[in-house]
């Protein structure tokens, strides 16, 4: 087992870096497993990792249709935070935050978790009141939150337009200092390596083409690499949830798939050492260690399974950035891309047993799934291993919509494109 340490780094440096072993194996599928996890993204890989680590279930396969990290885990804007209003959400995301704080040690893999703070800007007194209320709820539930004044914000980020003549003057903000960013690819690779070391088979280029059923019970899947049977089949496929569940005969879910675009600018010198969100639109930006500004905004706004977006949102997001940082007007956009988000009807996720016997479902993360990667996998592994939810994910059922027990942090109602 090639542990990563300063000694292994030195040893490999002196041998010309020719002796590094691949971080995970490329096994052939076995005919059957105890658990199959469909989806080799962050949540699927962390589920497999915690199944092996916490519950001793190592006869597990993770099925990924493309290459590892080709979906949303490699497409997000890397922010990690737990500043939610409702207790169900805070408990889930704060559990995740605590796991992030020890994740690099746990995985022996540097996920570059950086608690650089996430600041939500307020531009109206009503918005600031609302932030104060949310901040109090956050503190009450055990996470951290603090209101900042315009002077503090201007000191923190000199590039921001904090003048009273800005189109939307900044009158304060809500900061979570323990929030921050993580290297998204490293999270996928770290979990993959950790799961692989514990015996989990990671099967790339293995697309699920159908489900094998015995009566109502799901007993396996057919894939592009043959038939694979399992006692338990777990689905963690984010934006493809509707498509995959349709193959299992579930034609309707409280989910719509929408495309979200993200952008990276050319590399700049250190300019912004926190993540900041605009309060008069939907815009968030942080700066990577490499210097590029990583930013994004709203969904394109219509159902989409295409991993690319349209131009009106490109214009809108960039104009919002310039409203906050006029000095960036001549900075060039390096890349933009789209990811497919599983938008749920109340903006909160679903981590549950079912809906069919032998099946487990993890979906509905909207565009906030990355920050939840550790807790999502941890809770989902518990649910799969014990056949019942952990108290943290017990509220996040599939039937909560029909029972009237929705968890709508934003109070937006069942219009998923607005969450």
């Amino acid at each position, binding site marked *: 087992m090639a542990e990563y340490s300063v000694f292994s780094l030195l040893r490999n440096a002196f041998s010309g870096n020719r002796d590094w072993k691949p971080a995970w194996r490329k096994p052939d599928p076995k005919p059957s497993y105890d658990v199959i996890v469909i989806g080799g993204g962050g949540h699927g890989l962390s589920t497999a990792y915690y199944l092996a680590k916490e519950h001793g279930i190592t006869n597990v396969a993770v099925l990924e249709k493309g290459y590892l990290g080709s979906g949303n885990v490699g497409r997000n804007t890397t922010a990690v935070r737990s500043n939610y209003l409702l207790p169900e959400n805070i408990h889930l995301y704060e559990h995740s935050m605590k796991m992030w704080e020890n994740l690099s040690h746990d995985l022996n893999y540097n996920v570059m978790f950086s608690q650089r703070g996430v600041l939500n800007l307020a531009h109206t007194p009503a918005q600031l009141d609302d932030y104060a209320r949310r901040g109090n709820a956050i503190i009450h539930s055990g996470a951290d939150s603090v209101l900042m004044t315009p002077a503090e914000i201007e000191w923190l980020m000199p590039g921001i337009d904090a003048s009273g003549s800005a189109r939307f003057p900044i009158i304060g903000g809500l900061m979570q200092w323990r929030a921050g960013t993580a290297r998204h690819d490293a999270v996928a690779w770290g979990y993959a390596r950790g799961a692989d070391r514990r015996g989990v088979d990671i099967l790339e280029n293995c697309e699920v083409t159908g489900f094998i059923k015995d009566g109502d019970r799901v007993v396996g899947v057919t894939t592009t690499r043959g038939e694979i049977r399992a006692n338990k089949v777990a689905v963690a496929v984010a934006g493809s949830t509707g498509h995959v569940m349709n193959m299992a005969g579930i034609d*309707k879910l409280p989910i719509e798939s929408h495309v979200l675009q993200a952008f990276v600018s050319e590399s700049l010198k250190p300019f912004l050492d926190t993540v900041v969100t605009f309060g008069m639109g939907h815009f968030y930006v942080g700066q990577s260690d490499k210097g590029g500004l990583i930013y994004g905004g709203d969904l394109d706004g219509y*159902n989409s399974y295409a991993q690319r977006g349209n131009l009106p949102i490109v214009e809108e997001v960039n104009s919002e950035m310039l409203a906050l940082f006029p000095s960036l007007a001549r900075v060039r956009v390096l890349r933009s891309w789209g990811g497919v988000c599983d938008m749920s009807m109340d903006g909160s996720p679903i981590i549950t047993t079912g809906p069919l016997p032998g099946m487990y479902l993890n979906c509905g993360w909207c565009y906030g799934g990355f920050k939840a990667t550790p807790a999502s996998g941890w809770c989902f592994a518990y649910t799969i291993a014990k056949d019942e939810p952990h108290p943290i994910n017990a509220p996040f059922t599939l039937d909560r919509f029909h029972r009237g027990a929705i968890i709508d942090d934003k109070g937006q109602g069942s219009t998923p494109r607005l969450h």
Partner: protein
Amino acid sequence: MLITCPYCGPRDVSEYSYQGDGNRTRPDPASTDQEAWNAYVYDRLNPRGEHHEIWQHSGGCRAHLKVTRNTLTHVISSVGFARDAGHRKSDGHRKTGAEA
């Protein structure tokens, strides 16, 4: 993405507002069938492929349109007036042209 409005011709998507899934049927307003209302409010087909949806040409003639669009390729195969497809907010309270 261009949507061809039956009145105005091909126009940019930014002129339109998305009104959502056009596969849903609103139950009779007098209905007290809770499951039917739950299904109407929360359950979606969410297909990867052809999708029936309602758009409004809000930056143009303001007509509500029923559009069939492929959610994977964005190819639009048909556009018609939503009223012709029977999409009304409430069929129970529809007025004919003469009454209105």
